[in-house]
């Protein structure tokens, strides 16, 4: 039976993602002196992961890892698991890890809990807590197999301060399976290049149906999001009306988000929307209707017209944040 914790450190655009540090910090706390290791796919460098507590960093790089492929990821993760022999694997609840982990679970016969937002020790075992019904309810989740797999919602834990440690770099030898050739990425289409994904965003500015049109969304919400250094989001009503694309929908049938700051503009707060954003640390609601349910969740509320408030707020944030 394994010991310690293996963290999946995602690497993108030349650096490790913030989630890698969030998870290493939590892993150090949970491992109680046991080994904390990391696996990185698509790079041959350990970067600064050692300074954040990884004693060894397993890397898988080369052409096979240029694009995400579920099979190559499962192969690489399996190789890292057999080398590190951990009791627990922590990964970000990113599109790639959420796609690969069910296969990894089935291949290894290891229980997998999706998108936990808390982790704690209970009698020596790591127990997760996870939102269900898009956050309308929460449950503890325990994994009964000797190896436990968890994906963790981004922004759930603070990133720790760097220490002085360094990591041993270990290149993985990654085997092939017949499934690898079953699918192949032939192109990538970026619709909004350079924007942090809603699920990982630290700040979000969302618009509802009361922006009235696509032009309203583009002239009120997008500039405000840019001024706040935030990712734009939308309610289902705004998406269904064609004011914003599907990938910007926040809520039960869109994306569940977990930012530090969520600014809801002209969103009344249907239960499906509230479910998708209620764990945001600070919520600002701007709405004409003082009875709108969104105000029940808001840290700060402004009863007012978004067509008047949003441009003023854009200006003020530009002046403050540059």
């Amino acid at each position, binding site marked *: 039976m394994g010991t310690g914790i293996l963290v999946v450190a995602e690497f993108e655009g030349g650096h490790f993602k913030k989630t890698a540090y969030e998870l290493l910090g939590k892993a150090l706390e949970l491992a109680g002196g046991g080994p904390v290791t990391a696996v990185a796919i698509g790079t041959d460098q350990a970067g600064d992961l050692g300074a954040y507590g990884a004693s060894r960093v397993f890397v898988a790089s080369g052409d096979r890892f240029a694009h995400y492929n579920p099979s190559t990821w499962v192969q690489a993760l399996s190789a890292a698991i057999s080398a590190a022999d951990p009791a627990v694997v922590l990964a970000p609840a990113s599109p*790639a890890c959420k796609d690969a982990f069910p296969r990894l679970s089935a291949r290894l016969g290891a229980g997998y809990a999706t998108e936990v937002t808390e982790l704690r020790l209970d009698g020596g075992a790591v127990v997760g807590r996870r939102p269900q019904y898009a956050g309308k309810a929460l449950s503890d989740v325990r994994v009964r197999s000797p190896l436990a797999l968890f994906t963790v919602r981004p922004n759930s834990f603070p990133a720790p301060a760097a220490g002085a440690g360094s990591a041993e770099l270990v290149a993985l030898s990654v085997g092939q399976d017949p499934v690898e050739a079953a699918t192949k990425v032939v192109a990538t*289409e970026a619709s909004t290049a350079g924007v942090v994904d809603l699920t990982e965003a630290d700040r979000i500015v969302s618009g509802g149906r009361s922006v009235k049109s696509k032009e309203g969304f583009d002239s009120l919400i997008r500039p405000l999001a840019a001024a706040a250094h935030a990712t734009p989001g939308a309610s289902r009503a705004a998406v269904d009306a064609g004011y914003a694309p599907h990938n910007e929908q926040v809520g039960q049938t869109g994306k569940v988000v977990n930012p530090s700051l969520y600014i809801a503009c002209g969103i009344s707060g249907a239960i499906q929307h509230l479910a998708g954003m209620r764990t945001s640390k600070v919520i600002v609601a701007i709405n004409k209707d003082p009875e709108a349910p969104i105000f029940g969740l808001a840290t700060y509320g402004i009863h007012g017209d978004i067509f008047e408030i949003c441009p003023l707020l854009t200006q003020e944030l530009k002046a403050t944040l540059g």
Partner: protein
Amino acid sequence: MKIGVLLKQVPATDTQVRIADPSTGIATGDVKWTINPYDEFAVEEGLRLKEAGKATEVVLLTVGGKDVEQRIRDALAMGADRALRLEDPGFEGSDCLGLARILAAAIKAEGISLVLAGKQAIDGDNAQVPAMVAELLGWGHVGSVSKLEVDGAGFKAWRTSGGGSLDVVQGGFPAVLTADKGLNEPRYASLKGIMMAKKKAIDVKGAAALGLDASTVGAGAALVVDSAWTLPPQRPAGRILQGDNAARVKELVSLLRSEAKVI
């Protein structure tokens, strides 16, 4: 080509969730059930492939008791050909891997070569079963597909990959594809469809009929167990800002900076 669509019933999205018993989960007594919205996209895509002459039959597969039959009828009314309802006392309490084993056995027995499913069910939000089915069958899969093109040899699928970008993934059959919002606009059942659905076959199969080893499914085999259910914590009451627009906006930015420390 025979298409299998995985179907699950879930509480409607406007359900006000209550906890029945902290050890077992939510109260279901007054819940209005619907087809999982992402599964509706999968059903619709299956029907479109059949109508375009790229598939011969659309078979629904669901694990559950008699109470799921109305949801099966709803999908049959949209136009699916027939359904398999997988039920056995030994299936109860299965985790995602157990459910995937049940479904994989049925898919194999049916000779299905394309499985369509929702990218996740909006109850447990696990997003696990379809890719597990693919792994158990040794097939490729593409998750979160928002656009699909199929020709005789294979498919091209547009996969959501984060930050608003899409991977265009090429592959062949057999395969498992999961539907994201945007893939299509599901149709409403016609009156004729509803009448025809009443006559369509729903076959019920258990562990023995599927050739499943009963020790690999059900509560006894579950590796992932939920407990300690609660509603989310109440948020502390917020503050409504007063004054004219310019003053309120100034105060808000100052609070975000000095009190909440989020900008």
